[in-house]
């Protein structure tokens, strides 16, 4: 039966430095196995599409530019990702990994936060295609 049994604690805390993390000013170290932004290596991808199939939040989309020459582009919707790393597990060719230092991933605009992975010319090709279909779609609606 005591009163004020945390006296030692509060004296200790008073002397010690506060443990509050000053996050936006001081960025703390993340561990090696931290699950951050998904990083995709288009060079090794075989295009099996298991990552897209298994992704629980439909954050991944795979575009096949040229199947025979293994040219693929990955659209990664960062704002949908839940960082579960299932894509990393599902990937047979180890083309996907999760970064341990890129984790400040808040979107700063109203536009969807999307990242395209792949060879530069392939990404351009996919983007052009997307722009064309978008234009086509809008033309169609105009006709109606």
């Amino acid at each position, binding site marked *: 039966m005591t*009163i004020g049994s*945390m006296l030692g604690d509060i004296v200790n*805390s008073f002397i010690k430095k506060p443990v509050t993390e000053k996050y936006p000013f001081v960025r703390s170290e993340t561990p090696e*196995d931290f699950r951050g932004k998904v990083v995709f290596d288009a060079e090794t991808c075989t295009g099996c599409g298991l990552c897209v199939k298994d*992704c*629980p939040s439909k954050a991944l989309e795979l575009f096949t530019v040229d199947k025979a020459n293994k040219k693929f582009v990955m659209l990664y919707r960062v704002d949908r990702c839940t*960082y579960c790393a*299932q894509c990393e597990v599902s990937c047979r060719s180890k083309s996907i990994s*999760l970064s341990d230092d890129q984790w400040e991933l808040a979107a700063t605009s109203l536009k969807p936060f999307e990242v395209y992975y792949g060879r530069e010319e392939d990404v351009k090709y996919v983007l052009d295609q997307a722009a064309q279909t978008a234009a086509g779609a809008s033309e169609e609606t105009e006709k109606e």
Partner: protein
Amino acid sequence: MGSEKKPEKFVVSIGPQHPALKEPGHFEFGVEGEIVTSATARLGFVHRGMEKGTESRTWVQNLYLMERVCGICSHVHAMAYAQGVEKLAHVEVPPRARAIRELIAELERIHSHLLWLGVAAHEGGFDTLFMLSWRDRETVMDLLESITGNRVNYSANVLGGVKIDIDEAKISAIHKGMDFLEERTRHYMKVVTEDETFLGRTRNIGSMSLDLALRLGAVGPTARASGVTYDVRVDSPYAAYADFPIKVVTDTAGDLEARFVVRIKELYESFRVIRELIDHMPASELTTRIPRRMPEGEVVSRVEAPRGELFYYLKSNGSDMPERIKVRTPSLCNWGSVLSTAVGHKLADMPMILAGIDPCFSCNDRMVLVNQDNNLSTWSWEDLRQYGIEYYK
């Protein structure tokens, strides 16, 4: 104004938005002066339709959906689901994966119990204990982050095993963390069992007898504090609990103090079993192959979540998506104990009694029909729909 109305009971309604509740729930306490004379609860403010949602996702995707049923005990939900699916597929998980599952589950129990210690202290107005126990909880959060890669949704499981491994560096970090936490926990045990002002808020408050606990079907530490010797980890071992057993911690008092004691003693058990686990980690593969289409059938999977027995029912129709998944979370079983023990206590004790079962509101997003008499009745989908329309009219 009031004189025209007939005298009605003074009802203090707490929630759905209230500083004592970190999640939405609604309680109505009838009070006379400061004494509570009646208590009712309304739950289901956070219905997210997850059980229905599972039916349009694949077995693999559902693992991550089920992990998000509860933010605090995410691993046990994923583990219960994964175990159920593995049972459906008749797949044996390698021993090392089972040991790692148990390790994460126990680390999660530590984090959950320390979190509860802080929340309960805060409800009782003991903010220093709240702040300091949460400060120390950071140790185990950091450990979980370094092992699994995330502080909350660990995603350590995959169907058929685990996706993470433990190496020497992590083992020594865990040892260090456990030593520190054990010392701190022993200190907190002293605080909650000896500090006069805190005992005034917990001793003989919210007492639940063994009979009542059994009748209301209480589970987990809440029931064990009333002397119910039941723990899924012991009575029906899963993961690696058969090889690395724990001892059931019980108390007989059944009051809030006993719940503190039981939870803190469970922490001691967790420290012990974690040390054993990392010292004798079996060597094997981490995963086995598991089919994408589950054979037709239905299984039940049970695990001991930090709050009590967690129950999963899975039904497969042979496709790559489940036909039905039913989750029964431990918090749901304990509400009865809150409402029946609340009567007769002071209004000031209500937050403590509410917090005493370590409630998880988002786990309660389902409808419960409490049947006072014993006649069974079946509600069809149409009945439920009609009830919903009537209710919200």
